[in-house]
């Protein structure tokens, strides 16, 4: 069984936002502030004079233990066999419990196009199942996004995941994210 995940190398991200654009083109999302499947905010670390700006691409973490799936009343949010967390738009009634429960702010309400809660799918149906990479990964100029099977030691993503170099966000919550970050500055 594959366990799809993504490694994000913060050392290589230049904040160009091509991933955001590629995602919108591929998935026909709303293109509104706060209503995107992936975003690349610039975060500032430290205090003057030792300040550093880091681009931290954000998307759904496709948690192994997803809080959104646990709270969804209708089962619209679910995890596939490959560990990808998806939303069934027909079953979603838009109660927004998952939006509130997601620690990574990965979800938003799409009132216009899908009339449901929407989020990153890892391009599961439209690309990954056909053996292609997610749109954001394919377009990334800095090779900052690396997609693959985290359990496969022969893949680049798998090697990085097992190296101990890449870490999840908020590991304290026990959500076990499958998007891992290689820090530009030391995590702790």
């Amino acid at each position: 069984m594959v366990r799809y995940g993504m490694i994000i190398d913060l050392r290589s991200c230049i904040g160009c936002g091509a991933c955001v654009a590629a995602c919108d083109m591929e998935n026909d999302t709303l293109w509104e502030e706060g209503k995107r499947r992936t975003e690349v905010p610039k975060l500032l670390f430290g205090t003057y004079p030792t300040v550093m700006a880091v681009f931290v691409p954000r998307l759904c973490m496709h948690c192994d233990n997803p809080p959104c799936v646990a709270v969804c009343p209708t089962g619209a949010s679910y995890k596939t066999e490959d560990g990808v967390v998806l939303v069934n738009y027909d079953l979603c009634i838009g109660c927004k419990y998952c939006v509130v429960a997601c620690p990574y702010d990965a979800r938003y309400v799409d009132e216009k196009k899908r009339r449901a809660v929407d989020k990153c799918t890892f391009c599961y149906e439209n690309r990954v199942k056909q053996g292609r990479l997610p749109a954001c990964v394919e377009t990334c100029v800095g090779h900052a996004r690396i997609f693959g099977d985290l359990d496969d030691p022969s893949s680049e993503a798998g090697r990085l995941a097992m190296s101990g170099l890449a870490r999840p966000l908020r590991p304290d919550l026990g959500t076990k994210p499958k998007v891992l970050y290689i820090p530009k500055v030391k995590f702790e």
Partner: protein
Amino acid sequence: MIEAGVQTAWGWLIALYLFLGGMGGSMVVIGYLHHVRSKQNHLAAVGSLVGVILVALGTLFLIGDLTKPEKFYLVFLSPRLNPGSWIFRGSLILTLFIAFGLLYAAPQIKYFHWLPWAKNEKVIRYLGLVAASFGFLTVMYTGILISMARAVAFWQSPALPMLFIASGLSTGVAGMLFVNVVQGIRASGERREMHFHWCHELSLWDAILISVEILVTFLYLYIVSASSPEAALSVNELLFGSLSIPFTVGVLLLGLAIPFLLEYLHITRGKTASEIVRDKGVFKPCLLPITAATLVIIGGIVLRYAILAAGIKTIVIMT
């Protein structure tokens, strides 16, 4: 460094829903207790009916907040129903509460005396017990619902459902005070005296509940702010940040401190039952509790909103 954001998915409609669930559910609890204690049912019957209507209204707000309100039935009928979700469990509790609340309250109202169990006090009492239990579950559920959203550290405390229970019961007593005074104005003689007496009793209950609520609020904010940096951000927002006016003035002062003082004044210096007969009404002698009840209700609404609006999530922590 902490990258934090406030949850905005749940706003006023959900705050009103949580409030109405707390107030309506409590009115049936208080009504039933009053029914058993005083062996008189007319305050319990009308109060419970009002409680059920308030919860039903709250349910409409919940449905109105959905992105697809027309598909609300999927909460029960989805082919992949998740029985672990507190939206599903809450909907079930609300439905059973409304059903048993009506079964309990309706036969005691004169338009529904034709119902087969209307003359059987024992059956009505048992229905009352079931309705009051679901009423209490409704009150408790409103607190559990948001505590189960694990992303928000500020909500991760057993004191939050306790706060909602204390606030819910207090607003429920406030609602009963209104029903009681309206009934008292329309009654005469001995009955009016009885309503005035209940006004006194309800004020006492409310004062006790408000003091519990003040205590729980203090313990909750104090301990949760020490539990994690992001919960401390929420508490900071409530006390000193953008929510400080609604929270300190709306909840702490107008919703808790002033009503407590008013109820206290009424209990210690209010008029006696013999004076009320001379006053030919219950409105004026019950003015202090009625003012307190109005403030308690406003405070209850603002409290729900402030707690939701202070739901800060911390997404990235790095050094």
